């Protein structure tokens, strides 16, 4: 049985016992007190009735007395009429009192003699009352018959008096007896309740004593077991694995003792096993250490040798005696030093020992030690984690010999390296000098270029001037003298030759001017002017000036085809004229038939656009970017037969100029069909530019996208969440919104829904730019996934805003019936080519560069990551048009 249960049972029984005793005591007390109360109540009632009876008897006696005294006053009949009923009534009441008392019969619980006495008294009382009543009747009768003076009346009256006295005495006796009875009852109660209390206290004390003795017995038993177990555990913990707990009981202590004993047993087994293994491991370790080819010495943290292997003893020949466990480092060192084994120690043994000790303690670097028998030992010292020191001694005799050989070689090598280094240093010096010279040369070049201006132009001036004068003089003076056909023919040849000199000189002049122009721009020495320029004026002027170039081209027309009112631009009028002249002269130069047309208008992005379109021979695609390179001329096939015309610098200069004024210049062309040269310049007033609202919570992304857009000439507003975006969109009416999806507060999805609901804002194209792969369903018009490629972003913006002259061609995946593609004409202008997936890859393989529009429904049918990974294309994901919203196709610019 468990200790706890034992405790519980003992405590429980004690509690029950105490409760029982208390209950019995309290119950008996209660009964006693109840009984006593009853007795007292009875006695009191008796007393009260006795007193009541007494008072009624007195009233009866009063009536009787009054009767006797008032006979004379009232007459017998009157007195009789008045007092006899009164008397009868009072006496009757007293009699009824006695009868009640008797009838109550409540004296059953009173001691026998009291009840009997009371009953007897009541009998007597009733009899006495009757007698008193009948005596009174007799007295009344005698008063009527014989008169009150008669002896018979007096006798009867005396008898009646006596009866009354007895009666009152009886009543008094009864009252006294009742009072006595009540007092006795009180005393008895007091006595018996005192007894009951002492009995109760005694029994409670007894119960407590019993409980205490039980607890003490249990406590003794438990404490003994605990002490025993505790001492066993202590012994075990101190390492006495033989200790066992001797508790012989079937309770928890018994089981605990068994567990401890079992545990001790297992620990003993484990320890034995571990000791066996440790011994084995140790043996194995010692064997392993012995087997290694290097000397191995292990010292404990007090510098005492723990183990030295065979190789160590082998290396320190003659020191075997001292290489035993327990020997100190110092002893070992001193011994080997004095044995003359170490050459370095000879003659300075003490110092060497100190050095060794120092190395041992501070773990100095490995040391090569020559031994007296011609061998070399490498001594390395390590410290183990527990502060023990390992000394490894390696026989490096062979290595040393090889090293000697190497050392000689090294010495040669070092010489070589030194030599090389010297050469290198010289080279470096030369390089530095060359660098300095280059810088000087650069300055010289600048100086040269500026002096070329003078030095080349002056002789050119003479050359050109004189050739002209000669031609003039010759024509004026000598030609008329040529009278023979031969002389005339020769004269004409001289004239034409002089003309060639003139035109070639002029070409040379242009080249010099262009070279100087470009070098000045490229070196940053150009002094750029920024004034507000009216491009319409520039166009008129340039077209007027260029019309002179048309003289030899009778089949080419030069027209201003479109001239819209456009804002002013910030630029230098002369420079713009230079560019225009260059473009016009190029167009005229390469066009044999047809038209050179100039357009000036504000394009979809709010940039001022100049277009010079010709119907000339066109430019090959691979040349189209290179035409802006220096000295590049398209269509230069055979350089021997095809004469170059122009300097090849015009477009390079034009590009420098246009880009300097924040514009762009590019060419579109079809071979054999003609070329369009485009120039855009930002308007001086930025409010004319289309506005893009960039919504992103990340400031870095906002700035980046804003920068890209500004560079393209867009006005930019930025918002950091959906709410701000809605406010700005309503206020500024942007041409496009670039929308992030994940933002604090109102996110992109919600903002897009709100924008689409708002009738005034529902038409604004939305470009979703988000990290989420699954944001195609957010409701935007197109989706780009972060990180955003700059070209892709700008391409998408152009496409959505509807710049009809998108600079890059567009491939649309899917046929005309493809989902979503119905919006393409609106988005991308006319330059859209539709194709299938296979055709797409084929075209990409052929080097297609530009925008690829992928309807979202087709996104799964091709390798989108591969497509996105291609640097040459921008991918635009076109979300499906929900059936309930009308397709958007109204954003063309």
């Amino acid at each position: 049985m468990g200790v706890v249960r034992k405790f519980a049972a003992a405590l429980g029984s004690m509690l029950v016992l105490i409760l029982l005793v208390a209950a019995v005591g309290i119950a008996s007390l209660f009964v006693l007190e109840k009984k006593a109360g009853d007795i007292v109540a009875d006695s009191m009632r008796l007393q009260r009735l006795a007193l009541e009876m007494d008072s009624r008897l007195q009233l009866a006696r009063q009536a009787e007395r009054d009767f006797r005294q008032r006979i004379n006053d009232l007459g017998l009949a009157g007195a009789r009429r008045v007092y006899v009923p009164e008397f009868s009534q009072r006496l009757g009441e007293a009699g009824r009192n006695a009868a009640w008392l008797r009838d109550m019969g409540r004296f059953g619980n009173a001691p026998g003699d009291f009840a009997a006495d009371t009953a007897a008294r009541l009998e007597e009382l009733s009899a006495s009352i009757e007698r008193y009543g009948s005596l009174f009747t007799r007295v009344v009768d005698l008063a009527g018959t014989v008169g009150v003076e008669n002896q018979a009346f007096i006798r009867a009256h005396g008898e009646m008096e006596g009866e009354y006295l007895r009666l009152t005495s009886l009543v008094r006796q009864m009252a006294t007896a009742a009072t006595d009875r009540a007092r006795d009852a009180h005393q008895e109660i007091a006595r018996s309740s005192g007894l009951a209390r002492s009995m109760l206290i005694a029994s409670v004390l007894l119960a407590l004593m019993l409980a205490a003795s039980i607890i003490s017995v249990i406590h003794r038993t438990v404490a003994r077991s605990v002490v025993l177990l505790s001492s066993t555990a202590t012994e075990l913990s101190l390492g006495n694995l033989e200790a066992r707990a001797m508790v012989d009981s079937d309770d928890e202590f018994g089981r605990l003792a068994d567990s401890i004993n079992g545990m001790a047993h297992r620990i003993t087994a484990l320890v034995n096993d571990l000791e066996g293994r440790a011994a084995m491991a140790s043996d194995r370790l010692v064997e392993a250490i012995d087997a290694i080819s290097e000397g191995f010495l292990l010292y404990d943290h007090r510098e005492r040798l723990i183990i030295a292997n065979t190789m160590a003893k082998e290396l320190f020949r003659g020191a075997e005696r001292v290489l035993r466990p327990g020997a100190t480092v110092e002893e070992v060192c001193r011994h080997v030093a004095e044995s003359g084994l170490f050459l370095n120690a000879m003659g300075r043994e003490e110092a060497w020992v100190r050095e060794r000790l120092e190395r041992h303690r501070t773990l100095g670097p490995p040391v090569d030690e020559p031994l007296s028998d011609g061998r070399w030992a490498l001594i390395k010292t390590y410290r183990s984690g527990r502060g023990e020191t390992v000394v490894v001694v390696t026989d490096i005799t062979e290595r040393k010999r090889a090293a000697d050989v190497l050392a000689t070689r090294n010495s040669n090598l070092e010489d070589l390296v030194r030599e090389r280094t010297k050469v290198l240093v010289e080279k470096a010096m030369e390089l530095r000098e060359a660098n300095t010279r280059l810088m000087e040369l650069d300055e010289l070049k600048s100086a040269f270029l500026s002096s070329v201006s003078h030095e080349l132009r002056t002789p050119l001036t003479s050359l050109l001037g004189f050739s002209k004068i000669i031609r003039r003089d010759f024509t004026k003076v000598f030609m008329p003298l040529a009278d023979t056909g031969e002389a005339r023919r020769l004269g004409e040849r001289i004239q034409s030759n002089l003309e060639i000199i003139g035109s070639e000189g002029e070409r040379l002049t242009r080249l010099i001017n262009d070279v100087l122009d470009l070098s000045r721009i490229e070196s940053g020495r150009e002094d750029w002017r920024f004034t507000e320029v009216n491009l319409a004026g520039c166009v008129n002027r340039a077209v007027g000036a260029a019309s002179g170039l048309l003289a030899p081209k009778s089949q080419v027309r030069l027209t201003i085809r479109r001239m819209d009112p456009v804002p002013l631009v910030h630029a230098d009028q002369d420079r713009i004229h230079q560019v225009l002249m260059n473009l016009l002269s190029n167009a005229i130069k390469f066009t044999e038939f047809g038209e050179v047309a100039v357009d000036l208008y504000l394009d979809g992005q709010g940039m001022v656009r100049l277009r010079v379109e010709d119907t000339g021979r066109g430019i090959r695609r691979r040349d189209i970017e290179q035409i802006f390179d220096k000295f590049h001329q398209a269509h230069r096939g055979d350089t021997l037969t095809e004469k170059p015309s122009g300097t090849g610098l015009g477009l390079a200069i034009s590009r420098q100029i246009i880009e300097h004024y924040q514009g762009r210049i590019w060419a579109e062309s079809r071979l054999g069909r003609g070329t369009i040269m485009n120039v855009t310049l930002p308007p001086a007033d930025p409010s004319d530019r289309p506005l893009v609202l960039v919504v992103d919570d990340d400031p870095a992304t906002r700035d980046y996208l804003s920068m890209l857009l500004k560079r393209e000439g867009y006005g930019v507003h930025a918002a950091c969440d959906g709410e701000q975006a809605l406010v700005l969109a309503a206020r500024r009416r942007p041409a496009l919104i670039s929308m992030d999806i994940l933002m604090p507060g109102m996110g992109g999805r919600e903002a897009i829904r709100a924008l689409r609901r708002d009738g005034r804002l529902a038409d604004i194209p939305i470009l979703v730019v988000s990290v989420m792969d699954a944001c195609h369903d957010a409701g935007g018009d197109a989706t780009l996934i972060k990180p955003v490629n700059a070209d892709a972003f700008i391409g998408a913006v152009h496409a959505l805003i509807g710049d009809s002259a998108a600079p890059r061609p567009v491939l649309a995946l899917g046929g005309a019936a493809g989902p979503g593609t119905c919006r393409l004409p609106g988005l991308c202008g006319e330059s859209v080519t539709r194709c299938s997936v296979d055709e797409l890859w084929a075209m990409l393989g052929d080097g297609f560069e530009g925008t690829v529009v992928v309807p979202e429904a087709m996104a799964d049918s091709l390798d989108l990551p591969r497509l996105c990974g291609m640097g040459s294309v921008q991918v635009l994901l076109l979300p499906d048009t929900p059936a309930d919203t009308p397709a958007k196709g109204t954003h063309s610019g």
Partner: protein
Amino acid sequence: MAKKILIVDDEVHIKMLLEQTLEELEDEYDVELFTASDGEEGLAFIRGEHPDLVFLDIMMPKMNGYEVCRIVMEDEGLRDVKIILLTAKGQEVDRKQGLELGAKMYMTKPFDPDEILKVSKDMLGL
């Protein structure tokens, strides 16, 4: 009274070219041509002879064309001398500087003889 045209240039050939170009005027009108080979010589002639028109090179030894132009234009008595600056320099600053000093024109080399002739006639009111 014959109109006087002065050509100031250190380059002999340029001087010759201008002379030969302007000879036509000498033949047709009452014009006299004079030459000088550097700025000092040119200035001395202008002061002494008060020419009507001066073709003035800028880069010259002893005294450059700007200097000559400045001195002439600061002289009350010489202010009506028409100066045409001739130079290989074509930079905007140069042009501006020359015109600010009071030159009537700024022509860059290489120049066209016909142009010289036309300009001279205009300047002299011929």
